[in-house]
């Protein structure tokens, strides 16, 4: 029997430990993806027989103007949303480690949006941004003499995507604050003390010492935030339903409508497979980019 040279255990022992997780992962991830791929190769309304159509659904995606717009919106949502979540999350974390008093109170206040449900946050912002009846933001703009900026924000096709992106970022940036904060406070204080003795000011300590030391955490956060925003659904769906028109439609909201409103399980599944491949590709690209940075750095 072959044995692990270091541990002296049989070679199948490792597989024994991995198997339960592997079975579970296969059942809840691999099988549904495989099933979706199968459905995407045909036409099916959920009733009756599935009819094989080959790659017709994927070809339809190329000519689908709603899908194209949703994809562009998704790229904007992901890029801007990720940047805001990471930058604001980092700023919040850095501000927390820079203060000594009331740190816990402020940390709880920062984290509050992350624990409120997406539907509640969406409804709060819908009310705040309302034009008729007048919401708080339009009322405030008028009361400070900026009435010319008052408008029905969620009916402005030029603003809705930006608004849902920022509200989504507002909810989730506290998650990245928590990740960055825990990484920053766990840094070796001796290293920071040495930098201070060497004459590094606060900014130099931040950019040249602290951030490089938590680079792995930042890399993992980028993967998390980008894959999260690519799958963004709840806040855009509740706030605008993807509208007006297709102005805030994302691939995920379009997929939902195709599957459950139109009962077009074939085309909806092809959109789902697209999302999976898109997420995987981008995660691979990000990981490659970070590993290249680590090597050159």
């Amino acid at each position: 029997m072959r044995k692990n040279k270091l541990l002296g255990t049989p070679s199948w022992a490792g597989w024994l430990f991995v198997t339960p997780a592997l079975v579970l992962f296969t059942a809840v991830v691999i099988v549904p993806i495989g099933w979706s791929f199968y459905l995407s190769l045909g036409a099916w309304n959920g009733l009756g027989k599935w009819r094989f159509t080959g790659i017709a659904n994927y070809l339809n995606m190329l000519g689908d103007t709603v899908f194209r717009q949703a994809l562009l919106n998704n790229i904007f949502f992901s890029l801007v949303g990720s940047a805001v979540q990471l930058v604001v999350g980092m700023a919040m974390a850095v501000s927390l480690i820079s203060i000594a008093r009331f740190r816990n109170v402020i940390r709880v206040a920062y984290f509050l949006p992350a624990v409120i449900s997406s539907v509640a946050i969406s409804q709060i912002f819908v009310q705040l941004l309302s034009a008729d009846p007048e919401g708080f933001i339009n009322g405030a703009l008028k009361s400070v003499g900026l009435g010319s900026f008052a408008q029905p924000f969620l009916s402005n096709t030029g603003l809705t995507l930006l608004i849902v992106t920022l509200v989504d970022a507002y909810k989730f940036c506290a998650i990245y604050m928590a990740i960055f904060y825990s990484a920053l406070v766990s840094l070796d204080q001796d290293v920071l003390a040495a930098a201070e003795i060497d004459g590094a000011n606060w900014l130099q300590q931040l950019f040249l010492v602290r951030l490089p030391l938590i680079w792995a955490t930042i890399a993992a956060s980028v993967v998390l935030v980008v894959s999260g925003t690519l799958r963004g659904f709840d806040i855009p769906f509740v706030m605008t339903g993807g509208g007006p028109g297709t102005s805030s439609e994302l691939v995920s909201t379009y997929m939902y409508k195709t599957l459950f409103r139109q009962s077009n399980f074939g085309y909806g599944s092809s959109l789902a497979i697209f999302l999976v491949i898109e997420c995987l590709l981008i995660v691979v690209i990000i990981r490659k980019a970070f590993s290249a940075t680590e090597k050159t750095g």
Partner: protein
Amino acid sequence: MVRSSITGKVLRGVAVGALSLAIGATGANAETYHYITAKQPNGPVLQALMDVVAEFKKTHPDFDITLEHIPDRPAYLQKIKILATSGELPELFDADAEPYYEDIVEAGLVANIGEIFDEIGITDKYIPFALDYERFDDGSLWLIPWEANVEYFYYHKDMFEAAGVDPPATIGDFMDVCTTLGESGVTPVSVAGKEGWPMYRYLSMPSWRRMGNEFLDRLKVGEISMGSEAGLEDAQFFQELGANCFQQGFASADYTTALNMFLSGQSAIYYVGTWELHSLLDENSELKDDIAYFKMPIIDENDATGPDDFYAHSGIGTAIRADAATDEMKDFLAFLADRFGDISHHTYGGLPSLKIEVTDEMPQIYKDILADMEAVGEYARVWDVKLDAATVDTLFRQSQLLGLGEITPEQFAEEIDRSIQQYVSGQ
């Protein structure tokens, strides 16, 4: 030995217990029907239904209906579609006579309500348009209607008086009223542009006046274009409404927001069906002093439909799963036809799909509504029920853009035609 005997007794006891539990459960479930519904739990339909069930149980103690409410319509439809896909539809569930439900019927999953009603002799007890609304184009009936709704434009009398306008008789007058109300600083109309259906009602009015249901019947099969004269008239009308009548930001307003705007006096006009009547009544079950209503305006004397023809329907109906149409269920439906109308109206103030007697004690508003229902010649069919789901999605997106002035009526028509052609060619 003793130990073995005790173990044997325990095992036998457990087996007998399990068997009796299983038999008991089977017995209890044999006449218990699970009903997944999108109706409001406190609305007249479900309250009256459960009262009828309670009465029926006095003579049929094993019969029962258990309710599962999912008032959020999209969530409800999602659940029903998933259950249909996995072959686990409940015994009773709500549906419209739309293309997807037609697929469910074709798959043989539900009972033919029309045949059952004829078999037990209750068809004549229903208001004809309430039954007709639930029928497919071939005349077959696969859904139980519960309500009889007519849709009106409700308005605040004092706002109209202050602006010096009268209820409009024609669509042209309607636009003038909007303009005058707007100039007097009042939001003319509140509409729930996030919901879809309120937009489609407005959108469809000109073509329905010009051609009756013929326009929709031909549009959905691609025989007439949205870019035709009638179709473009619809689109132009809707765009004008968006510019002159609807509240700012109508595209993001939901049902409750738009209704509350009207109820709180922040808009002058609100279009809704009689299912919302309870919100508009005072403690004597009459319309509130400040509120009155008018019917869908006409265009002119060349209209295909008259002033008494407008939107009248029975709302979302209820299907019975094919294997749940038992003799017991048929007995219940016969009992329901005798009792539901009276309980729904007299106890809960509803307007049932079953014929009810007009009495002197009845509040005037109900007498007027029942008279209007009686006078309806042709009732307008509903776009979001008759068109295919993909076209309804397109209609939703494009209607918002049209109302906001982001696209032209011609662009709107082009998108709707394209979607209908895709559906027709895929059939």
